[in-house]
C-alpha cells in the first residue's frame, strides 16, 4: 500500500506541475501583455505595475517567472478577475462548491441507476432485456446534452410544472453562505423554514443532476455489463454453482462484489466526462457554478479567470480521480500489490 500511495502521489505532483505550467504558459499564449493576463490588474497604475513586475519577477528569466507564479498560487493568489475586479480565488471558492454539489449528485445518480441496470443486462445476456437496455444506452450517450436539458425544461418545468427550471434555490429563502454547498448551508442555518428550504433545494437539483447523469449512466451500464459478464465467466462462479448455491446467492454474494470493483476502477475517468457535461448544463439551468462562470469569462475575454478556472477545475477532477483510485486499491488487493496476482 505504501508503494502504491507513493506512486499515486508522484503522479499527482507531476500532474499539478504540468497543469500549473500549462496555466502559466497560457498567459503568454493569450492575446495581450502576459503580466496583465497573469494578474488581471488591467487598471493598475504605473507604480503598481512596477510592484507587480517585482512580485512576479518579470524582469528575470522565464524560470524565475514560473517560480514566482507558483509561489503566488501557493499563497492562494490567482490574480484578479479582469471583468469584475474581484480576486479569482474568492470567486472560485464561492462557485466551486456549487459545481461539486451538482457533479457529485449526478455521479451518485448515474452510479445508482446505471450499475444495477448493467448487471441486469449481463444476467439476461442476449435476451430481449439485454438488447433493450443496450439500445437505450446507445440513445443515452448519443443525445446532445444541451438539447436534452432544453427538452427536460420544456416537459418537466413548463408543461407539467413539477420542477423548477433554473437556479439553485428559490430566492425566497435566505441562506447564509458558509460552505457554499447548499444542503450543508441549509442544515447549518437556524431559519425556521429550514425544511421547506431543504425541499426547495432538492427540487432544484433533481432536473439538472438527472440531465447530467444520463450519459455517464449509460456508460456505467456498459461498464457494469462487461464486468459482470467477465465475472460470471470465471471459474469461482462455476465452483459456487457446483457447490449448489442458488443463482440469487451467487449473484449477491460473489458476482456483484467482484464486478463492482471493476466498475469503480473506471469511475475516475468518467468523472472528467461528467464535469464537461455539467459545464454545459450549468449554462442551461443557470446554475451558479464554475462551468457557467468559465464560459461567461470567455465571452468577456477575462483571461485571468480562464487560467484560474482551468487550474482549479482540472485539479478538482484529478483529485477525485486519485481518490477513486485509492478506493479501488482499498477494495482490490491485486491493484495495490501486483505481485500478489501473478
Amino acid at each position, binding site marked *: 500500500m505504501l508503494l502504491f500511495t507513493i506512486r499515486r502521489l508522484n*503522479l499527482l505532483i*507531476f*500532474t499539478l506541475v*504540468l*497543469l500549473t505550467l500549462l496555466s502559466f504558459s*497560457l498567459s503568454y*499564449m*493569450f*492575446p495581450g501583455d502576459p503580466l496583465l493576463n497573469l494578474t488581471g490588474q488591467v487598471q493598475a497604475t504605473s507604480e503598481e505595475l512596477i510592484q507587480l513586475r517585482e512580485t512576479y519577477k518579470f524582469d528575470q528569466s522565464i524560470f524565475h517567472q514560473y517560480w514566482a507564479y507558483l509561489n503566488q498560487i501557493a499563497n492562494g493568489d490567482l490574480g484578479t478577475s479582469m471583468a469584475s475586479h474581484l480576486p479569482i480565488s474568492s470567486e472560485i471558492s464561492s462557485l466551486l462548491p456549487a459545481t461539486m454539489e451538482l457533479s457529485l449528485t449526478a455521479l451518485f445518480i448515474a452510479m445508482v441507476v446505471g450499475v444495477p441496470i448493467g448487471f441486469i443486462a449481463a444476467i439476461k445476456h442476449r435476451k430481449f432485456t439485454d438488447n433493450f437496455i443496450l439500445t437505450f444506452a*446507445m*440513445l443515452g*450517450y*448519443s*443525445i*446532445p*446534452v*444541451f*438539447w436534452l436539458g*432544453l*427538452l427536460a425544461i*420544456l416537459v418537466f418545468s*413548463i408543461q407539467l410544472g413539477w420542477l423548477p427550471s433554473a437556479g439553485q434555490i428559490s430566492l425566497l429563502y435566505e441562506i447564509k453562505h458558509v460552505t457554499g454547498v447548499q444542503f450543508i448551508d441549509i442544515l447549518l442555518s437556524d431559519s425556521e423554514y429550514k425544511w421547506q428550504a431543504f425541499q426547495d433545494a432538492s427540487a432544484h437539483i433533481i432536473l439538472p443532476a438527472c440531465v447530467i447523469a444520463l450519459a455517464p449512466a449509460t456508460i456505467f451500464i456498459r461498464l457494469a455489463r462487461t464486468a459482470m459478464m467477465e465475472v460470471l465467466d470465471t471459474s469461482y462462479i462455476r465452483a459456487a454453482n457446483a457447490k449448489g448455491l442458488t443463482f440469487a446467492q451467487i449473484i449477491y454474494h460473489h458476482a456483484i462484489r467482484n464486478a463492482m470493483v471493476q466498475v469503480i476502477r473506471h469511475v475516475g*475517468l468518467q468523472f*472528467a*466526462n461528467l*464535469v*464537461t457535461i455539467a*459545464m*454545459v448544463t450549468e*449554462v442551461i439551468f443557470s446554475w451558479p457554478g464554475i462551468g457557467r462562470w*468559465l*464560459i461567461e469569462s*470567455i*465571452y468577456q475575454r477575462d*483571461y485571468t479567470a*480562464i487560467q484560474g478556472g*482551468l487550474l482549479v*477545475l*482540472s485539479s478538482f*477532477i*484529478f483529485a477525485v*480521480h486519485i481518490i477513486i483510485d485509492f478506493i479501488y486499491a482499498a477494495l482490490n488487493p491485486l491493484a495495490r500489490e501486483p505481485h500478489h496476482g501473478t
Partner: protein
Amino acid sequence: MAREKIYQEEEFPSPLLQLWHNFKQTHVVMIGFGCFLFLIFISILSPLIAPYSAVESHLDSLLLPPAWSNDGDISFLLGTDNLGRDVLSRLMHGTSLTFGLSFVVVIISMVIGVVIGSISALTKGIKSSFLNHFLDVVLSIPSLLLAIIIVAILGPGLKNTLWAIIMVLIPQFVHITRNAVTEEFSKDYVLASKLDGAGSFRILTYSIFPNIIEKIIGQATLAQSAAILDIAALGFLGLGAPIPLPEWGAMIASSIDLFYIAPWTVYLPGLAILFSVIATNLVGEGMRHALKIRKAS
C-alpha cells in the same frame, strides 16, 4: 509456358477486408452504415438538392409549422423559423457543417495522431515515459474544457473551433496508435521481417499498419461522435459557428427564445444531431464487434 494451377486458388483477405466481412453480418449496423453514407451524401450534395438557400427568408411565411400539422405548407416541409428561413434547407446545409466538418476534423487529427504515435512507439526510455504521463494528464482534462481553452486562445469562430477540436482529438489517436504499435512490435512476424533486414519505417508501413488500421478506424468513429457533439456544443454556447450559419448547435441556440411558440425550430436540429451521432456510434459499435469476432476466430 504458363504454370498450371494444381490447387484451387485460396484467397486470404486482408485484415480490412475480413473486418468488412464480419461487419456486414449485423443488420442494425448495416442500417447505421447506410445512414452514415446518406449523411455523407447530403453533406456533399446539399447545395444542389436543398430546396432553398440557408439564408433566404420568405417574409410572407414566418414560423410555419411542419407540413404535417394543420397550418403547415407543403412547400416548407419542416416549417420555417422566425425569419422565414426553410428549416429543411437549413438542416441540409448544416449537415456539411456539423457532420461534414467533423469528418474532416477526425481525418486530420487521425493523420497527425498516428504519425506522432508511431514515432513515439519507436522511441524508448525517459522520453516515452514522459510522453505517457503527459498524455495521461491531457486525457484527464475534459475534452470540451480543453476545446474551450483553445478557443479562448484563438478567439471564437468556426475555424478556430475546428482547430481546437483537432488538437483535443490528437492525444487519443497518439495513445491508441502508440499502444497498438508497441503491442505489434513484440510479435513474431515483426521479428521475422526484422531478421530479413527491414528498417523500422518499412516494418511500420508494410507489416504493422495493415494490422492495426482497424483499431485506428474504430477510434476514429468514437472520435467522430465526440467531434459532432463538441462542434454542436460549442456552436450552442456561441463559441463556434456564428448565428447566421446553419450549424445545428448554433441553430438551437438561435431559436431558444422561440422554444415555446415554435418548438420544431429547436427539436428538429437536436434530432439531426442525435441521428448523426447514433449513425456514427452504430458504425463504431459494429466495427468493434467485428474486431472481437476476428480476434476470437
